[in-house]
């Protein structure tokens, strides 16, 4: 598999073209080239469009806040909206999502409040939303580890005869980890109702795909586990949605796991502390800017007469409202009690932790007393 996507002849020799339902120019792909998948309805696509636009606005806003130093870190998904939104849109309410650090817009799309998403990135606590309510696991940092959690949860649901499916997002780099392999294999052997969506953004931080794997496509890996695999244009939300939804249905009906690769690109740096000019050219980035998933769908929707100026304006207004909410939530300082550090490590109380908590409490009291005295003195 080659990173060198500008060279279509090379890519063509090595891998089949990814599945598309809407092409680069925003035109519907002929039925016979669509691998048996059907283009979602215009209503569905319009909804996906709205979610992508809102998600991007959020992403851009948070990136800006991060540049201002207001967040500890933020991994942007700019350019990957089609994968992220299609994944979330394919979930039924009872399904679970297992995201990574990169998938904040997936959380947003599933209804998590900006302030709760940002809690971890601004350093308040390691993770900050209601997992049960949203049915979203904490965003995972240790790569590919969450894929196993997804398989376990899906298997538990199957054992309980619930019709819950788990969907997990992974990066291309993460597929190299042993945990990814074990997750794929356990899922296939146990016929777990789980869907693996690999966002192949062609880089693991600075490492390009051809130093990461030598297979034609990531989807090919599915063969070695005995599950279906799909190689999809990850900037075509229609295709991603159609394929993921089909996989969810398959899983829900007892058909086991599916591996889906969405070929896409990360437009922003890996995180704010990354310098992508060290490992890729502006030309490469520009090429992929030109393949923008939102613009592509926009062309299609406009061509269908579905995206009127009115609708567009209302979507943009939604996006702006969200951006405002996002900025505003950063002005409220979360109240974090240092003594909470000791609260959640165990459910069974431990005397040693109680001692350490008491120690910190005394220290804090001392500090408070000291600063009270200092304040008094300076007030004099």
């Amino acid at each position, binding site marked *: 598999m080659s990173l060198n996507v500008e060279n279509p002849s090379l890519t063509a020799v090595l891998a089949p073209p990814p599945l598309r339902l809407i092409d680069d120019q925003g035109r519907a792909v002929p039925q016979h080239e669509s691998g048996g998948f059907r283009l979602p309805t215009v209503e569905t696509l319009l909804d996906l469009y709205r979610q992508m636009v809102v998600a991007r606005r959020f992403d851009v806003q948070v990136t800006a806040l991060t540049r201002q130093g207001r967040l500890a870190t933020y991994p942007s998904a700019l350019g990957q909206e089609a994968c992220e939104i299609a994944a979330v849109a394919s979930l039924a309410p009872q399904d679970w999502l297992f995201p990574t650090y990169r998938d904040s817009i997936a959380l947003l799309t599933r209804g998590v409040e900006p302030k709760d998403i940002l809690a971890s990135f601004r350093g308040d606590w390691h993770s900050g939303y209601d*997992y049960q309510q949203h049915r979203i696991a*904490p965003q995972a940092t240790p790569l590919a580890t969450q894929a196993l959690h997804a398989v376990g949860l899906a298997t*538990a649901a199957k054992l309980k005869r619930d019709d819950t499916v*788990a969907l997990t997002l992974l990066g291309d780099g993460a597929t190299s980890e042993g*945990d990814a392999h074990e997750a794929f294999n*356990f899922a296939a052997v146990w016929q777990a109702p789980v869907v693996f969506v690999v966002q192949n953004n062609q880089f693991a931080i600075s490492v390009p795909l051809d130093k990461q794997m030598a297979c034609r496509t990531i989807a090919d890996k599915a063969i070695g586990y005995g599950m279906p695999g799909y190689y999809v244009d990850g900037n075509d939300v229609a295709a991603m949605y159609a394929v993921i939804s089909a996989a969810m249905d398959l899983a829900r009906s007892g058909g086991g796991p599916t591996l889906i690769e969405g070929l896409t690109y990360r437009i922003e740096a890996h995180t704010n502390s990354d310098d992508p000019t060290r490992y890729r050219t502006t030309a490469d980035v520009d090429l992929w800017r030109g393949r923008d998933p939102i613009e592509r769908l926009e062309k299609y929707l406009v061509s269908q007469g579905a995206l009127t100026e009115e609708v567009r304006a209302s979507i943009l207004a939604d996006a702006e409202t969200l951006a405002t909410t996002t900025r505003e939530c950063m002005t409220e300082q979360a109240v974090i009690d240092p003594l909470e550090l000791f*609260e959640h490590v165990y459910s069974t109380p431990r005397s040693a932790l109680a001692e350490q908590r008491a120690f910190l409490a005394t220290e804090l009291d001392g500090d408070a007393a000291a600063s009270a005295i200092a304040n008094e003195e300076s007030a004099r």
Partner: protein
Amino acid sequence: MSPQQTLETGTAVRAPESLTMAAALNAAIRDAMVDDPTVVLFGEDVGPLGGVFRVTDGLYAEFGETRVSDSPLAEAGIVGTAIGMAMYGLRPVVEMQFDAFSYPAFQQIVSHVAKMRNRTRGKIPLPIVIRIPYAGDIGGVEHHSDSSEAYWTATPGLTVVSPSNPADAYSMLREAIASDDPVIFMEPKSRYWSKASLALPVQTEPLNRAVVLREGTDVTLIAYGPTVKTALATAEQAVAEGLSVEVIDLRSLSPFDDETVGASVRKTGRAAIVHEAAQFGGYGAEVAARLTERNFFYLAAPILRITGFDIPYPSPKLEEYFLPTPDRILAALSTWEWS
């Protein structure tokens, strides 16, 4: 076998029978599974084979594929999927076939099992039991005799326990399965075949408490898992030398029962800790350090550690030179100045 009374757990009390530690562990899992339909068991060879030490013997036949299953051969996979199951309300009991084969699961254990509850502000507890047959003295080839407790006890978020006898094996495993915290349950291989007469379901001391197994006045000998037997033998042998040895079975390695052990050390003024693992950075360091910190002015002598050497666990023909013996322990105690 007539039911005598129904405990809270719903398990009827059975007539006393002679049970090995392996059988007691087996009974504990079985009874927990009967009482609580959310308990599931999986791992390598735990199904039809009943585990390489037969700890899960018969459970596959009794509970079937949905509750007891052989997993693919991958320890991170076993622990990682157990995490997902626990997130969905199950209580997985998983087995790492031998101690050294828990290492592929290290990241899942340290970065997730130990931290999930804290990460989620208590919202995702992980009631998982990870059973690890550990330690040596069974003539095992390389990688089959490791003592890995120090890795787990150094990890905040884990509860680490080790029974030394069949009664505790049963009681502690039941409590571990019932606990909302993840428990690393370390089973001393060399004690699997030790026997006791038990009327199940037996309940011993709470999971987080140490017990004084033998009272004494001169020295506190602290042991756990496989070395408890050694410590008791030492105490016996010490009588001839006029030494009164108090023996403590820690049972819980993390948390450490400061109260019970501290009281003993303050009484005797001298203490030694015995374990199979290498000394450097071993669990005994924590025991010695914290007892000294908290009881320094009661101590007549430094706390000693009688442990394996600072080398990898040796091959079968050499393990006798590695393992702490009563003679070695008594020799160590005699290095103290006994004024």
